[in-house]
């Protein structure tokens, strides 16, 4: 078996705030293989961005990582223990070198006072040993690759001179110019119109194939996940509740939360289907429920169990895990039926 490119184990991230210490991510584990696209979904505040930033050790100053948290990056025959990195040059390697990131808001990636070309060249020279001239030619080449017309002219422009779709492409060009092994894409197309989104997704998929790059793709749009991801991890209140191949999870969701999401989504192939919200509100991160984090809103809640014990990730099929007592029970009765 090939070693995963990234392996995240028991990642727990807490923040010290005025109201006390809050848990944003709790014991999350997943792997991403080389060239694999893992989709991370969940409601606002579920800890997707905090998880992603942990891979680059990029969380704010008030962050406390749990003692058992471990993030391992396997690149160039090296095994990097991400959370133990402290030296600037080591951090640089996982921030824009082997790992790079694109955000929802492209303006966040660019300094407004520098031209696109200057920033791309600087990033390149920081991570690769290239001359100014080489950096310029790589940058222009990359801008052209992402479908920006007239790349040499754009090279000398400022971000604010570009349209939203162009900015997103320029940001992707910058993130990819150092040929990272892992791209972290946090809602990269959410601000785009659907026709432009389709273009950008196409582009990202081409680049995955060409560079054998892996992507951690964060989005709240399950349609986008269905189209780009190989596997999917569903998060709720900082916890991973279900993970598996995109086919298995979307066609046959096992966790009540995932099932709830599917019922709330407007589907184009059934316009008369009612939209059913998940009952109740997300609890505040300051008041994380005991037992299963989802039990306060769950329709399959088991009395005497779900509010007391924490369900563990269990195998549904070879390529699909779920953390839910009801799903587990159903699974057990099914296997019993099958064997008897």
């Amino acid at each position, binding site marked *: 078996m090939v070693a995963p490119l990234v392996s995240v184990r028991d990642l727990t991230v807490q923040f010290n705030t005025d109201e006390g210490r809050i848990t944003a991510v709790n014991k999350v584990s997943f792997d991403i293989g080389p060239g694999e696209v893992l989709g991370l979904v969940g409601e606002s505040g579920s800890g997707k961005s905090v998880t992603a930033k942990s891979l680059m050790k990029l969380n704010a100053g008030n962050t406390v990582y749990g003692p058992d948290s471990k993030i391992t990056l396997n690149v160039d025959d090296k095994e990097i223990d991400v959370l133990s990195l402290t030296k600037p040059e080591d951090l640089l390697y996982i921030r824009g070198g082997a790992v790079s990131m694109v955000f929802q808001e492209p303006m966040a990636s660019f300094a407004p006072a520098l031209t696109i070309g200057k920033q791309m060249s600087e990033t390149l020279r920081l991570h690769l040993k290239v001359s100014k001239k080489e950096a310029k030619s790589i940058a222009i080449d990359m801008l052209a690759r992402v479908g920006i017309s007239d790349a040499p002219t754009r090279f000398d422009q400022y971000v604010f001179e570009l349209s939203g779709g162009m900015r997103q492409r320029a940001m992707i060009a910058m993130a990819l110019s150092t040929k990272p092994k892992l791209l972290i894409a946090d809602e990269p197309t959410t601000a785009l*119109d659907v026709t432009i989104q389709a273009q950008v997704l196409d582009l990202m998929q081409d680049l995955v194939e060409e560079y054998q790059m892996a992507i951690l793709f964060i989005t709240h749009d399950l349609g986008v996940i269905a189209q780009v991801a190989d596997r999917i991890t569903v998060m709720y209140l900082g916890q991973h509740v279900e993970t598996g191949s995109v086919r298995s999870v*979307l066609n046959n969701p096992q966790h009540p939360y995932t099932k709830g999401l599917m019922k709330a989504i407007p589907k*184009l192939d059934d316009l008369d289907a009612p939209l059913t919200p998940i009952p109740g509100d997300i609890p505040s991160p300051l008041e994380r429920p005991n037992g299963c984090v989802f039990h306060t809103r769950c329709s399959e809640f088991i009395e005497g169990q779900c509010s007391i014990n924490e369900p563990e990730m269990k195998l549904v099929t070879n390529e699909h895990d779920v953390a839910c007592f009801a799903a587990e029970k159903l699974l057990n009765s099914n296997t019993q039926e099958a064997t008897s």
Partner: protein
Amino acid sequence: MSENIVSIKGLGVHYPIVGGWFGEKKIVKAVDNINIDIKRGQFFGLVGESGSGKTTLGRAILQAAPISKGEITFNDGERKFDVKSLKNQDLLDFRRRAQLIFQDPYAALSPRMTVRDIIAEPLEVMKLTENKEETNQRVRDIASECRLNIEHLRRFPHAFSGGQRQRISIARALVANPDFLVADESVAALDVSIQADILNLLKSLQKEHGLTFLFISHDLSVVAHVCDVVAVMYLGQIVEMAPNKALFRKPRHPYTAALLSAIPSLDPDAESQAIKLEGEIPSPLSPPSGCRFHTRCPHAKPRCSEEAPEWRQIDEEHFVSCHFADELNL
């Protein structure tokens, strides 16, 4: 009695802007030559990409954007208004009947207003109640109809989640008993579960109060689920309008077809059918000649860049503006 609550004829909303190297005056036609009717009781959807003019059209109907050309008639069955020329008492009366649901009441209003103040403001500004007690009663009634916690009325909205803020907006828009509401991107920033909840609330309020909605959204799947009739905008114009199912099953304009094809399917095995559109949306400052979509249209022919297509009926309640809508098999 006409059954149209809003009737729009040849509407143009033009803004003069100073730009270019020599400070020349130019005109942006944010909305140009629009002809549509919205029937009483409809949930009317307006879709299109950013910058296509959806918000401007919604604002023009509410007399919150300048009506440069054409006319808008509002008739709720009780009174008829020529929206363009409204003043003073008539304008106030019109405002009570036609309201906007803010996308975020917190961003739009003073942060020092409590939830109660935000909801009560239309009543107070328009002097619709006799005394404070009546105002408070009305606020409580509408708040509980919008499933807001009465205890929360004394709080400030910054403490609330996106879904709760949206309910505050809806309550404020409804407090003066309007007949017509413009909901501009009301569910845009919400998680799917909260989105479903707000959409259900809007639909049930519509039934209960016999409201008419202009529902503006960039999300086609949402519009497909809640609207009766849908109009598609491109670069300041409406290119197609049809009953919901007709539009989604059989679009007749190449732009609508491209838009629908670009929605990512929830089925991982569905091959992407996205129709590739060349380039970006042109600037509304210098819209293309002829059909405004011709620069990106996969079916464009020489005629398209020379002659603007007419807005015409192609099927029952189905309107389109494309020279070749009859022959294209989209």
